[in-house]
């Protein structure tokens, strides 16, 4: 079935209560979905981006109000993976939030920098209660398990973006 997975586009849609236990369950579902080759090279980035955006939606967007919902959508295409997370909170002024790294002794402020590092493109709606992220699906030739002395394929775009943030 490996060949059919490699060229397959698929979508996932979930409507969650604002509870971290539901975020955890969805992240495990994503991990299972992206563990098989040739998607494995994207697994860490997809799960990390999903965790960051879903946690934000539950804890900050909906402020922990379990009566409010969080909607998660994923579209895995042949070249791109798109994630979208929206909540029912008032949103936030994302234009004023820095994407640069905080001081290395700051115990907060790394959520947005992580999104900027791992997503090729990041877009908020005007209100700031919906975020959409795109990451490039690695070519199948790049889908290799990390080997001794070699960085995993998914780490390569991070290095490129790291210099952008650092500058």
């Amino acid at each position, binding site marked *: 079935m490996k060949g059919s997975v490699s060229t397959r586009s698929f979508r996932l849609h979930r409507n969650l209560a604002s509870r*971290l*236990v539901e*975020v*955890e369950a969805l*992240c495990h579902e994503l*991990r299972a979905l992206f563990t098989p080759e040739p998607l494995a090279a994207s697994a*860490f980035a997809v*799960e*990390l981006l999903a*965790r*960051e955006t879903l*946690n934000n939606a539950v*804890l900050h967007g909906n402020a922990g109000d379990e009566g409010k919902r969080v909607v998660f959508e994923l579209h895995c295409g042949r070249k791109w993976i798109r994630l979208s997370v929206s909540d029912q909170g008032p949103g936030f002024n994302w234009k004023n939030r820095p994407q640069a*790294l905080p001081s*290395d*002794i*700051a*115990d*907060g402020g*790394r*959520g947005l*920098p*992580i999104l900027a*590092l791992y997503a090729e493109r990041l877009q908020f709606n005007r209100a700031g209660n919906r975020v959409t992220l795109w990451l490039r699906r690695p070519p199948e030739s790049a889908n290799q398990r*990390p*080997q*001794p002395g070699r*960085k*995993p394929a*998914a*780490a390569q775009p*991070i290095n490129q973006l*790291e210099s952008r943030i650092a500058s």
Partner: protein
Amino acid sequence: MKAYTIEQNGAECRVVLTGDLGASILNELKTDLKRQIDQGALQVVFDLGKTCVIDSSGIGLMIAAHNSLARKQGRLAVANASPEIFQLLRSMRLIERLNVSERAV
């Protein structure tokens, strides 16, 4: 099943994660760690040997623990980070601050 165990040996404390380090275990782990540090732990090691993913809240927890220990001349270390987690922490420029070592392949 708890998401971590804490092994204490004198002033040394080893936090062995049995899963991921993120928002869902943050409050409980923060309370347990604070208790350990208040009771005299000066060397804290986070063992990420079974951890696939950490998020920004998990990183923040380790930084907060590092800051608490630094005030007491203590030390925090992160052991057995996967290549992906090592790369994430390197991108955050935290390898030296958190004394991160990579998981043996």
